[in-house]
Each structure stands twice: as structure tokens, then as C-alpha cells.
């Protein structure tokens, strides 16, 4: 049982870490502001989501699980809203905004 849990954690966390890698590479390599913004959201949504998923079986009881899920949902909400706001600022005033 515990070996299965370990495997699950390793797979999910590794996948999450991969998306952080992808997000950083995108942020550094993509040609303009809006495409970079796109790369950023992958790390926010999928990277953190998979890390949280991998940590869920190790959380301290139901409250721990609830906290982890809340962290992910809050980051989802925040990053979605902020991406919109940044994109709008870029459209209105150019990338120097």
C-alpha cells in the first residue's frame, strides 16, 4: 500500500515539477509578452495542481487535504484574474505597462 502511495506521489510531483520547468522555459524563451503569459499559466494551474495532487495522500487528515485543495483553488483564481489584468494592461498600454 505504502509503496503504491509513494509511486503515486513520485509520478504526480514529477509531472508537476515538469510543468514548472516548462513554465520557466516558456517565460524565458517565448518571443513576446502574451505568449510568455500563456506559459506562465501552465505552471500555475497544472504544475501546482499536480504537486498538490501528489501530496494529498500525505496530508495530515481531512483538514490537511482541505487546506491543500484550497491553496490550489486560490492560486487558480488569483492567477486567472491576474493573467487577465496583465493581458489587458499590455493591450491598452503596450508591454512597457
Amino acid at each position, binding site marked *: 500500500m505504502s509503496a503504491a502511495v509513494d509511486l503515486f506521489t513520485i509520478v504526480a510531483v514529477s509531472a508537476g515539477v515538469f510543468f514548472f520547468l516548462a513554465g520557466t522555459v516558456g517565460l524565458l524563451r517565448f518571443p513576446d509578452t502574451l505568449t510568455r503569459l500563456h506559459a506562465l499559466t501552465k505552471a500555475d494551474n497544472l504544475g501546482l495542481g499536480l504537486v498538490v495532487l501528489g501530496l494529498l495522500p500525505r496530508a495530515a487528515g481531512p483538514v490537511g487535504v482541505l487546506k491543500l485543495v*484550497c491553496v490550489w483553488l*486560490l492560486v487558480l*483564481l488569483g492567477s486567472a*484574474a491576474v493573467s*487577465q*489584468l496583465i493581458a*489587458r494592461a499590455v493591450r491598452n498600454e503596450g508591454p512597457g505597462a
Partner: protein
Amino acid sequence: MTTWESFDIVLAVLVLPLAFWTIAARETFVAVVSYVAYGLLLALVWVRLGAPDVALAVAAIGSGLSGVLLLGTAARLRDVEEQAAAARPSLLLRVIAAVLSVTVAAGLAVALQFLPDPAPTLAPVAARNLAATGVGNPVTAVLMAFRAMDTLLEKVVLMLALVGVWSLAPDRVWGGRQGPRHQADPQGMLVFLARLLPPVGVVVGVYLLWVSADEPGGAFQGSTILAAMWLLAMLAGLTDTPPVSSRRLRLALIAGPAVFLLVGLGGLWLGDSFLSYPAAWAKTLIVVIEIGMLLTVGLTLALLVAGPPERSARQ
């Protein structure tokens, strides 16, 4: 080298460049963003130092309120910053400053190697007297009971800082409202966020206060989150800053210290000395003081970020 040691070194290697950019970057905006990022990583260092209460305080103040305050100031001071950048001190002065700074840093690093061993600590004393306070988190016990006087005076310092900020208002808007009035777009993203986030934030803020009795948390940490939520509603234009002449606002601002003082004076009357809590009531009194603090500190922190009054109350 264990994994823990490598982790600590990685963390240090990641954070030092941010501290360096905060000082050395050419543009002020870069320096501010570096400092905000630095504050965020600092929270991880505090976790590694076994101080989750401090990590919470640093996370709440460093990544939330400081960011809003410093970025707002940076935007308003942009012209001045460019203008002042020309007045760079001479090479000689910079070399002298560098030598002085390196000497101080090296002196501190050396001094750390000669700290007394075993380290002096008040932890056993705190542990012995913890039961008398009724709370299980030693940091809360220190803040609210053993060194309650410090915490009371800190409230007064916060209030003095707010009075200082308010008194920077031009005469014609004295008693008016702080900061610009933000306009809300009911369909906008910011308004959406400002409607969804504060209810969650209020729950988390009160939760941090509540668990601080036995686990890491605290009234400061909770009130910082409440302050941030109020600021979010202001920035989104959902609510306006209250006029600083409002009597209700002023009463709320002194409520925290007033409750603290009353309990303290009650200790003089019923107990042994100022701020002594009767053992049977200790926990209840601590929670009452903390609730008063949550309200007052939250208001004070948000109003400190909002700045001095800028328009008359009617606007």
C-alpha cells in the same frame, strides 16, 4: 552532505542574487520586484529556521502589504527616482561605503561563530509557565502574556505611525478620505476577484487567530490578511476609504489598545500587577485581547497602506 544541507545551500544561492538586485538594479521597479520576490523566499527560510509563526508574519506582510505599498510608491515616485538617480555619489564615497559594509557584514559573520555555547535560552522558563496562560503555542504566550507590555506598546507605535501618515495631509483635505477613489467596472476581472477572495480571506484570517492558541498563527498574521482583503475591495472600487474624521473609525482604531489597557488595569485591581491575568481567566482574556487586536491592527495596517487623506470627505 545530506539532502537537507544541500537544500539550505540551494535556497541561500537563490535568495542572495535577489538581495543584490534590490540594491544594485538600475531601475527602481526592478529593485522593488526583486525585494518582493526576496520577501517570498524569506518565508521558506523561516520555515527552515523552525519558526512557522515568523514565516506566517513574513509571508503576510512581505508578499502582501509590502508589495502593494512599495509598488504604489514606486509608481508615484517614478519621475523623482529617475531625476535623483543622476545624483550618484562619487567613486570614493562608494568605495568607503563598500569597505564599511563589508567590514560590518564580516564582523557579524565572525561574531556568529563566537556565540556562547550552550546558547542562552528562555524556552525552558516559557515551557514551565505555559500552563498558567492556558495557551499551547509558546510564541502566543510570550506575545500575549509574558511580554504583553511589548505587544501593547507595539499597538501604540502602529497608531502613532498612522497619526503621522494622516498628519501629512494638506490642510484643505484634512479629515477627508485617503487615496484616490477607484472606479469599479461591474463586469471587470478585478471586481470579480474582489468579490470572491475576501470571504475566503476573512475565514483564513480568523482561523489563524483561532489556531494561534495551540498552533502557529496569531493575531498579527490574521489581521494582515484582513487588511489585505479590505485593500483589495478598495483597489477594485467596491468600497471607499472612510473619512479619517469619522468617529466610528477612530473608535475602532483605539478599540484594540483600549481593551488591552482595560484588561491590564483589571489585573492591577484583581491580580498582582498591571497586565497580570487571573489564572482561571487567562485564556479567555487572551482571546478577548486578540480579537480586539485583530480588528484594530487590521484597520491600522490597511489605512497605513492607503496613505494620507487626499480628497475631502464629500468626494
